[in-house]
């Protein structure tokens, strides 16, 4: 049986990789992929705690997180497409109108 600490170390490493991806990349598509990575890290965490505590709630919440991830991907990619129509580019630096 794998100890809980190993699950936490791995899932948090994955989460940090997602955060770094969001901060580093300027391509909106890759930023969305990094967000999916973070959601996946959270799923692993929920599943690990569900196993550790013998409670199914964690697995049920993972189903909900996956549903939210699907909705987020659909809306996010629709935004990518409309941004591309507007700007002809998916680079985040080109969408800087709100800088003030």
């Amino acid at each position, binding site marked *: 049986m*794998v100890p*809980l*600490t*190993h*699950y*936490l*170390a*791995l899932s*948090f*490493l*994955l989460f*940090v*990789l997602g*955060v*770094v991806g969001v*901060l*580093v*990349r*300027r*391509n909106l*598509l*890759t930023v*969305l*992929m*990094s967000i999916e*990575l973070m959601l*996946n890290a959270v*799923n*692993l965490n929920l*599943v690990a705690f*569900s*196993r*550790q*505590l*013998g*409670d*199914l709630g964690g*697995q*049920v919440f993972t*189903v*909900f997180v*996956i*549903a*939210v*991830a*699907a*909705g*987020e*991907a*659909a*809306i996010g*990619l*629709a*935004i*990518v*497409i*409309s941004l*591309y129509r507007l700007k002809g580019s*998916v*680079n985040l630096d080109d969408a800087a109108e709100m800088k003030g």
Partner: protein
Amino acid sequence: MTPALFLFWLLGVVVVIGAVGVIVMRQPVHSALFLLLSFVAMAGLFVLANAEFLAAVQILVYAGGIMVLFLFTIMLVNVRRQAKEPFLHGQAVVATLFGLAFYAVVGGLLVGEAKKLESLGAAGAVDPARLAAVTIAGVKVAGNSQAVGWALYREYFLPFEIASVFLLVAMIGAVVLGKRTMEKVD
């Protein structure tokens, strides 16, 4: 090292390789394929953690649905024509250092707290078999899929219905946002 632990870190390394690939690849298509690798290995980790139903959902929804959506969008926006982004701009260095610090501080705290929980769990009370076999309303449920199904349709029925409404809203929103011209709607 037990076989389960070895398998865990084998899959874990694949997941991390996928995640690093997503960040460093310059072509979005390559990023998407590394993301797929990460998702599939994650499904294996779910199996290791007694969550067989979630492993199947992970493959179906992430590797099947979300990945197809990403690949279609990459095809539609034709990013190959885009100007190449510089690989290491100043922000990347700062972000990587921030990530390392974040991992060290919060990860250390998290693992410390989890160790306490683990010592608590070792005393008893925790039984992984509870995830696969529960008794609800006098009916003995066998198997993880059936147990999750029972939980979804009984204890978590309201959130489940809200999730379905959420998905409907997301679908309509995606259709409206993806429309070619907004003006023609009026």
